[in-house]
C-alpha cells in the first residue's frame, strides 16, 4: 500500500496537571484524539502512534494556561493518499454508475462511472450486481472483491474520502490481475514496489513550517519524516 508510511515527529504534548500522576497515559490519550482524522501537520491520517519520552523535562507553560508541555518523540503510522497512487480496497457496494470500496477497513473510496473502463459491463442480476469485463469474462468485480485503483482525488476535509479511477493500467480486480497481469504479478512475487515519483509532495512538506498554536494540544515543531515505505502487505 503506497499511501502508508511511517513517520517520526518531535512533538510537544500539553498535559493538564490533573494527569500528572500518569503522564504516559495522558500523552497517549491526547494523541489518540487525533486518530482517524486527517491532520495537515502530518499530511495524512494518523493510524497509530507510539511515543518515547525524552528525558524528564516537563516545562510549565506560564501564562493563563497552566498546562505543562511534554516533549515526546512519536513514531506514527500515517495514511496519506496522493493522486496517482495505487490503492487496494474491498468492494462494499456496486451500482451501475459507481463502485464503492473500503480501504484499510476505514476509508471510503468511490469510483464513478466515468472512471470505469468501457469494457466493464454492469450486470444487475445476482447479489448486489457485478461488473464483468467484456474482454475477459473471468475478470469480475463484485461485492467483496479486492480491487486496485488509482487515486484521483482525496477529500481531506472530513473523513478522507477517496475518489478513484480504474482507467490506468494494472487496475481492477486483484485476483484476476495476479494471474493475468504480468507486471503486477512479477511485482508481488518479487516483493518490491515500482518507485513512484513523490518528489513533488516531499518538497511541499519540507517547505512548510508549523505554527505554534496555543489552543492545539499537540504542537509539532518540525515533523521530521523518515519515509520508510511500507513494503508488501
Amino acid at each position, binding site marked *: 500500500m503506497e499511501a502508508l508510511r511511517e513517520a517520526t515527529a518531535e512533538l510537544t504534548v500539553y498535559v493538564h496537571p490533573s494527569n500528572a500522576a500518569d503522564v504516559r497515559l495522558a500523552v497517549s490519550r491526547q494523541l489518540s484524539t487525533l486518530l482517524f482524522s486527517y491532520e495537515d501537520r502530518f499530511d495524512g491520517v494518523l493510524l497509530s502512534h507510539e511515543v518515547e519520552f525524552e528525558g524528564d523535562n516537563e516545562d510549565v507553560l506560564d501564562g493563563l494556561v497552566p498546562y505543562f508541555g511534554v516533549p515526546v518523540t512519536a513514531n506514527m503510522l500515517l495514511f496519506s493518499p496522493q493522486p496517482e497512487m495505487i490503492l487496494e480496497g474491498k468492494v462494499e457496494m456496486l451500482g451501475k454508475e459507481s463502485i464503492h470500496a473500503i480501504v484499510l477497513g476505514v476509508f*471510503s473510496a468511490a469510483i464513478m462511472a*466515468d472512471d470505469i473502463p468501457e469494457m466493464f459491463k454492469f450486470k444487475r442480476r445476482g447479489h448486489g450486481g457485478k461488473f464483468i469485463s467484456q474482454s475477459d469474462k473471468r475478470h469480475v468485480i463484485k461485492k467483496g472483491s479486492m480491487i486496485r485503483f488509482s487515486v484521483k482525488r482525496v477529500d481531506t476535509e*472530513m473523513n478522507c474520502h477517496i475518489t478513484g479511477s480504474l482507467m490506468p493500467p494494472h487496475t481492477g480486480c486483484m485476483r484476476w490481475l495476479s494471474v493475468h497481469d504480468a507486471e503486477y504479478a512479477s511485482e508481488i512475487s518479487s516483493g518490491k514496489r515500482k518507485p513512484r515519483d513523490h518528489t513533488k509532495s516531499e518538497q511541499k512538506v519540507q517547505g512548510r513550517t508549523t505554527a505554534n498554536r496555543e489552543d492545539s494540544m499537540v504542537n509539532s515543531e518540525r515533523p521530521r519524516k523518515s519515509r520508510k515505505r511500507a513494503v508488501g502487505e
Partner: protein
Amino acid sequence: SLSLASPPAKTLETSRLASPPPPCPSRRAGIPSATHLTGRPPGAEAMVAELRRDDMAEEAGTIRDSVAFRLVERVLQSVRMEPFLIAPYDLEQYRMMVGTLDTSRTKNRDDEALYVTYLKALSEAVSKIDITYHHSLLNNIFAVRIWYLQRDTMVALLDLITRLAAVADQYLRECLQMLVNNFTPPIVERNEVPTWAVSRKKDIFSHLCGSLKTISDTVPLAPRMLRDIIDRSMPKLFDNKAKMISFVECMLGLDTDRMGDLIGAILLAKVVDLLTELDVNITWEDILQEEHDKGIFEMELEDLDADDDGDGFGQAGTKVCLGGNACAEKLDGLMVVVCEHLKSLDRQRLYKEFVILKTIFRASLLRVHRSKFAQFIMFYTCSLDPKTLGEGFAVFLTDIVTEKKEDPISRMSAVSYVGSYLSRARFISADTVVTILKKLVDWCVDYCDHQSKREATPIPNHQLFYATCQAVMYVLCFRLRSIMDYPNLKSDLFHMPFGFLFRHRLEPLKVCLPSIVNEFLRQAKDAGLVAAFVDPAAEDAIESDLSRTFGGINRLDMFFPFDPYLLKESDRYIRPNFEFWSMVKTTYSDDTDDDDDELEDLDAPEMNVGSLDDHVEIDINSDDDDLEYSMNKMSITPHHSFLHQMAMDSDGGLSMPARIRPSTSPPSRWAMSGESP
C-alpha cells in the same frame, strides 16, 4: 405543509401503486423514441405516458430506467453552470424535475410513479449532482418526511440517500441528519401520533436503521458523525412525550454491534442520561399526596407497603398523583421502551449490553443523589437472566464497596444498592445472598480489626462501616427466613462473626437505623442467630444520640434505591420480580397458621428447642409491653397511621419499618407511597 387528508388517502393507494402498472399489449423494443434525446424532450405528462407504456419485463424496465436516467443526467448537466448562463428551456426542465421531487404537494398516482422513477434515476446519477448548482434539488431531497411516503417511494428515496452518502463526504452529514430527523413521526393535534403512523412505525424504523447500517458499512467513519448528530438531535427534557419515545425507540433499534466502536456504548449512555434527567426532575411534591406530620423522626410503617398487593388503595392513589407530572409520564414511557428493547435482545447481545450498562451505571447512575426509578433498568436487566446477570450485578456492587480505591460516595451508594437489591430482587437465590453477605461481613470484620489497631476516631469517619452493617441487617430482615430453609446456608450464616461485630466498640447496633436494628434483632433472636449476646436494653433503642448525630442532611444510609416502583405503565416489568415487604416471611411469622410455622422453626435440628421456647413466649409478651414503653419513650407523637395500623393488626407483631423519613424535610422517598391512613 401537507394536508391531513392526504396520508390516509395515500395508504389506500399503496396497494394500487405497489403493483406494477399492467403490461401494455404492444411491446416496444428498443429505446422508445430517439426524439427524447435529441429534440425537445416531452413534458411531464408525455414522459409519464411514455414510461408507463413500457413493458414490465426486466429489459423494458431497464430501458425505462435508462431513459429516465439519461433525462435526469442531461437536465443535471445542463444547469451545472452559473445561473445566468443557463438556457431558459433547461432551467424550465430542471425546475419541473425539482417540482416533482417536492413532497409538500400532494401527488396523484401518475406523479407518484414519476417521482419514484426520478428517485431511481437520481440514485444512479449521484456523481453528477453538484452541491452548489443543484442546491434546490438537494433541498427537496433532504426535506422529505418519509412518514408520509408510500412504501415503494420510501425504499427508493432511502436508496438515493444511501448512495449520496457514499459518493462524497460533503453530503454525508446532511444524509445522516435527514435520517435522524425521521426518527420522530409527525405530530398532530393534541400532541398525539396519528394512528396510521403508529402502524407503520416498525416498518419505517427498520428501514431507517437498515439505511444507517448500509451507510456505515460503506463509509466506516460515518458512525462518528452519526454519534454527534444523534447527540444534537436527542430529545430534551421538555420535548413532547410521543416524540421522545419514538426517537429513543428507533435509536435503540440501531445495530450498534455492526457499527463498531465508534458509536458503541454512546447511544445507550445517552438514553440512560435522559432517563436520569427525567428522574431527577420528578419532585417529591408531585409524589406526595397529602401532608404528613413532619416530625423530627417519625416512624412510618409498612401499612403503606401492605396495601401494595392488597386493595391497592395506597399504590393506586399514589399513581394517580404521579400521573399529573409530565416528567413522570415521560419517564414511564421511556422505561417501557427500554425494557422492551432489553427484552428483545438475544442472549449474546444481552450480555454485551449488560456490560455496557454496568459501566454506565457506575459512571452516572450510581452517583446520582437519590435517583428514584431510573436504576430499575438494572433491576430489569438482571431479572432477564438471574443466574448470570443477577449475580453478576450483586458481585459488581460488592466489589465497589470493598475496593479501597473507589471514592467514598460511590462506595456508600453501592452499599445502599447492595442492601436494597438483595432484599428486593426475588430472582436472587439464597446462596448468592449468603455469599455476598459473607463478603460484606468479612469486610466489616477487617475494618474492625483495622480500627482496633488505631485510636478511636469520631463517628462520621466510619460511615461506610455503619452503612454496610445496616445493609447486612436489612438484607437479613428480608431473607433470614428463606436462608434458614437451607441447612448448609444456615450453617454458613451462623458461622459469620455477628457477635464480634455487634459487640465491637464501634457499636453498630446503636448507630444504625433503629427500626432496621430492631426488626433484625427480633428476627435474629427468633432464629437463634444473636440470642447470646444482645443487650436487651439496647434492643429497643428507638433513637440514640449517636444515631441522630450520625448522618445529618444527606443521610445516605437511608437511601434504599429499590424501594417499590411507582410508575404505572412500566410497573408490569418490575412487579413479577419484586419482593414487597408484606410478602416477606419472617422468622417470627405471624400468619394464621403461625403456630405451626414457629414450631417448625423450633424443630430445626440446630436449634436448642428448650431454651428458645420460653424465650419466644417472653418475646411476644414483652414485645407489646416494650412497644408501649417505646411509644411512650418517644418524644413525638407517632404517626396517625401507626396507631391505626396497630389497632387493625391482629397479628400483634411489629411490622418492619423499612421506610423511615429523614430527620429533616423534605420528606423522603418513603413518603412516596403516601396514602391517607
